């Protein structure tokens, strides 16, 4: 279980996390979204005990987290993390020696699946392959909580699809909390169960993916009709084209009429509506 209580983290004048509170209890895949500089990596690093908070408390399984007390149950994987420049077979063996929970068989099986050459040294790999090795090290670590920062960076579409399958298999095989920070919103939406959106260091949204499917939609039509139809609803963004208006709504669904159309809102559009430069409204 993960708990953030009023966490503030600043880097001098810049505030990365601002009274950030969040509680994660259930195993599952959590998609972490936010614009660049929103505080995602700071959130992940404070959770992993890689950096300290300025104030506030973080608990993992009831234990306070800090750089003095890095949580043993958490494995943080940065896509560009540097590793020992060993042959991959030796690197996985070293990880196995260094971590009693490491699943060496799982690592080897999936290295083969991703066509990783175990005889190659880490520094000889392409950026995408290095990312895959880092991700495999994390997924094989046997930890209860995995924190992945941009895990598909540098992956081609085939690798990305295999990665999402692997993520789901890994969670089915051994339930765990997996928090994935990414910008590939719609792809991640296929596998994530919950969504966390951060903006300007604050928690903007924390909800079930199903909730988004049900409550996030777009109303399009003549401006007056649309405004009338969405009156009292939570509007998270809007676009205008001539006399036509599209409003992005996050609220109870309304039915379409001959005056306006109601359509599904993709996660990417929902995200842009929520944290883009347009109309913004915090939803909790």
């Amino acid at each position, binding site marked *: 279980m993960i708990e953030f209580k009023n966490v503030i983290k600043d880097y001098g004048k810049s505030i990365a996390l601002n009274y950030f509170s969040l509680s994660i209890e259930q195993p599952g895949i959590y998609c972490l979204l936010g614009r660049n500089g929103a505080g995602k990596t700071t959130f992940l690093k404070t959770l992993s005990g890689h950096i300290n908070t300025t104030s506030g408390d973080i608990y993992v399984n009831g234990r306070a987290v800090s750089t003095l007390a890095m949580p043993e149950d958490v494995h943080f994987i940065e896509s560009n993390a540097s590793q*020992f*420049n060993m042959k991959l077979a030796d690197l996985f063996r070293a990880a196995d020696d260094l971590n009693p929970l490491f699943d060496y068989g799982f690592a080897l099986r999936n290295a083969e699946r991703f066509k990783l050459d175990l005889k190659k040294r880490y520094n000889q790999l392409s950026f995408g392959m290095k990312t895959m090795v880092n991700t495999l090290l994390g997924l094989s670590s046997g930890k209860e909580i995995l924190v992945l920062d941009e895990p598909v960076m540098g992956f081609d579409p085939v690798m990305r699809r295999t990665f999402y399958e692997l993520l789901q298999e890994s969670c089915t095989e051994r339930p765990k909390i997996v928090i994935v920070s990414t910008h590939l919103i719609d792809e991640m939406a296929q596998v994530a169960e919950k969504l966390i959106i951060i903006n300007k260091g604050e928690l903007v949204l924390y909800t079930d993916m199903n909730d988004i499917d049900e409550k996030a939609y777009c109303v399009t039509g003549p401006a007056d009709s649309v405004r009338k139809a969405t009156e009292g609803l939570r509007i998270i963004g809007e676009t205008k084209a001539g006399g036509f208006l599209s409003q992005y709504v996050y609220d109870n669904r309304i039915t379409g009429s001959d005056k306006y159309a109601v359509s599904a809102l993709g996660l990417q559009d929902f995200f842009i509506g929520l944290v883009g430069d347009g109309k913004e409204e915090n939803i909790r």
Partner: protein
Amino acid sequence: MKTALAVTKVNLKNQTVAWIITAVCILGGLSNYLISGSDGFKNPFLSIGLYPWIFLILLAILTPARNFRKFMNINLKKNEYMKGCAIGYILLAWLLSAINLVCYMTIDASIAKIPSSGIINLLDIFGWADHGLLLAFFQQFAFLLLLAVVLHSLITIQTFWYGIVVDVVIIGIIVIFIPIAPLRAVLKDAFNLIIFHQNAAVQIVACLALSAIIYLLSIIPVRQKRI
């Protein structure tokens, strides 16, 4: 313990720079032997047993500077990292002390028989050989361990404000203490304690105690260290 030993193994294996520099220095030392040998060993030269010390020095610098982060990326616990490093320094100090002693007893001893030959070994310079070979081995081991621990700790604290303070203090001690006679005497006493002390047991205990204290203190910055 198994994990700590694995840390030692991985750390020693991943010291390419240190291995290469040490190998180059040893080769340089061997060629120096050949050159001095052709001259009848009349020009003073450094004992070959001292060259492997370079590896320990580089290990103590490169481990916290380069390998710490890699260990953390592989999700190692910080206390296992500290244990693994300590085991590495102890084993290496032990091994290097033995190597130098063997060189001192064999190669250096045979060269020393040549009239007016000049071979330099710290066992003689520091006066450790005067206490007998067994004590000399332990004196050397304790000193090497202290050297490794001090370097490891100094590099570890460099990312903290107090690391800079320690650097300034060390430079200050060198600059201020040396020219002023009473302060110079203090400095002399300190070096006397860890290197030149007439009583070998005092020197060994002082080095081991200081190593333990400094290493235990260095756990604090390691635990505070950002990744």
